[in-house]
């Protein structure tokens, strides 16, 4: 119970059942489902996941949907679909925490599809954490598919902390007329952990925009890869920025692909990967911080 509560608090900053809509999944079973006035959660008949419908015009409502895996050897795939009605403004806080103290691999594969209606605003925050003994494998493989209708706005904010043995993150987005997608990704790996990210964004209609910002820190012998493919099929704008700090023997790669299929599509990819700049360390040390304190401050700021 303590492990569950601790993971829940880290995932959603919750101490108790939150206001608004809520679903809690623990060890492969949806324990609790709670609707709010305009957010309706249904269990899929085949048991594969949930269907969430947010009414058109909904304002200031939120949905929390944490997943906890504390049973060693559990390997589950959950498919959730979200339909965000026109003009709705909603915040969804999701995430998965794995605590594995056994020898078997534990894995959660969350497949989420978002259909964001005309003029709707979605903020989707997703956090992945893992704990337990060092030898047990803890895998988190989120797949997120986003469909943005005209004038829709979606902010996707994902965080992965140290402890996740392997993560394969796939994000696909199809951005409509004057719609805006903002993706912020923060990843931290250590030991022999691996995190792989793959973004595929198609800017389908005029005025479509995407801003992808990835910040990551890889330490010890961990590996990270960042692959992004942004295709501009109309008069659109795409900006992808990948910054990584590499410590010890870690390895990080960034592979950009920008595909311009319209003469007025503007697509930019920036990547900066390297160790902590020595002048940043020295600057903070001249203010009185130790080297270790300076490193921590730089990394903490970098991932803010």
């Amino acid at each position, binding site marked *: 119970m303590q492990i569950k509560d601790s993971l829940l608090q880290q995932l959603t900053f919750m101490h108790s059942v939150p206001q608004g809509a809520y679903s809690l999944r623990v060890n492969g079973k949806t324990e609790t489902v709670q609707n709010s006035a305009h957010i309706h959660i249904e269990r899929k008949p085949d048991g594969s996941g949930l269907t969430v419908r947010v009414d058109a015009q909904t304002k200031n409502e939120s949905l929390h949907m944490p997943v906890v895996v504390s049973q060693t050897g559990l390997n589950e795939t959950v498919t959730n679909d979200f339909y965000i009605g026109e003009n709705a403004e909603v915040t969804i806080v999701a995430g998965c925490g794995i605590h594995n103290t056994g020898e078997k691999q534990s894995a959660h594969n969350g497949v989420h599809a978002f259909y964001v209606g005309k003029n709707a605003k979605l903020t989707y925050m997703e956090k992945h954490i893992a704990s337990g003994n060092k030898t047990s494998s803890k895998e988190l493989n989120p797949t997120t598919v986003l469909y943005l209708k005209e004038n829709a706005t979606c902010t996707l904010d994902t965080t992965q902390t140290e402890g996740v043995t392997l993560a394969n993150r796939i994000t696909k987005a199809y951005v409509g007329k004057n719609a805006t997608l903002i993706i912020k990704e923060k990843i931290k790996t250590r030991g022999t952990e691996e995190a792989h990210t793959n973004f595929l964004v198609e800017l389908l209609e005029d005025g479509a925009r995407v801003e992808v910002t990835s*910040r990551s820190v890889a330490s010890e012998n961990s590996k990270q890869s960042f692959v992004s493919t942004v295709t501009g099929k109309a008069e659109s704008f795409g900006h992808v920025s990948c*910054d990584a700090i590499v410590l010890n023997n870690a390895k990080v790669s960034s592979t950009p692909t920008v595909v311009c299929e319209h003469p007025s599509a503007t697509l930019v990819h920036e990547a900066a990967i390297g160790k902590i*700049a020595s*002048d*940043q360390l*020295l*600057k*903070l*040390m*001249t*203010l*009185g*911080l*130790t*080297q270790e304190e300076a490193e921590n*401050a*730089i990394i*903490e*700021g*970098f*991932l*803010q």
Partner: protein
Amino acid sequence: MLNIENISYKVQNAQREDILQNISLSFPENKITVITGPNGSGKSTLLKLIAGILQPTSGKICLNKQDITPLSVTKRANLGITLAWQQPVRFKGITVKQLLTFANPNCAQLSTACSALARVGLCAKNYVNRLADESLSGGELKRIELACALAKGGNILLFDEPEAGIDLWSFTQLTHMFTSIQNATIIIVSHQTKILEIADYICLFQEDGSAILDTKQKLLPKIQQTPTCQKLQEEV
């Protein structure tokens, strides 16, 4: 008292290997000394040696008779040596207030952070929560650099070309900032006449890697006639 004793600094494979050659200087306590001299004469190098960012090839640096040459940058900072960098460093994700708080934990209080920024002529409420990154101009970042140095304080305050990037309209405020500092030995690297005018002492670095230090009254008229100074004036 800060003493530089027979300091040399050499770099290998450079066009000029001997950056500083056997320099000995005593910086008068609680006075303003302005170091001036041509580009490449080792002025900034000396400040970095005092702060511990660089290690001398030979010689030692003593603070109040303690040999601080083997001490780390952090230890020197905690002994009261503070360096305002010539080219301030940018940080991703660190706010101006966080930087000030690293310099002085009291700046965690908004009022203290605001006071520190006000000392360098910045409207505090516009800056405390700004990121100290590329979104700030060079001049803004330079002022924040000075604010951090002042917030940290110390017995030995080193300023490397503090006027760089500061608009001319703010020069009076900048010089007033230096003259209002109490109980600290202030060492400023500068080419600017207005900064030289507020000096108690001047230290002239020469192209051959040597340096002389004397009162402003004695040294300023002499150096205005030297080839080094004439060249310096051309550069300014």
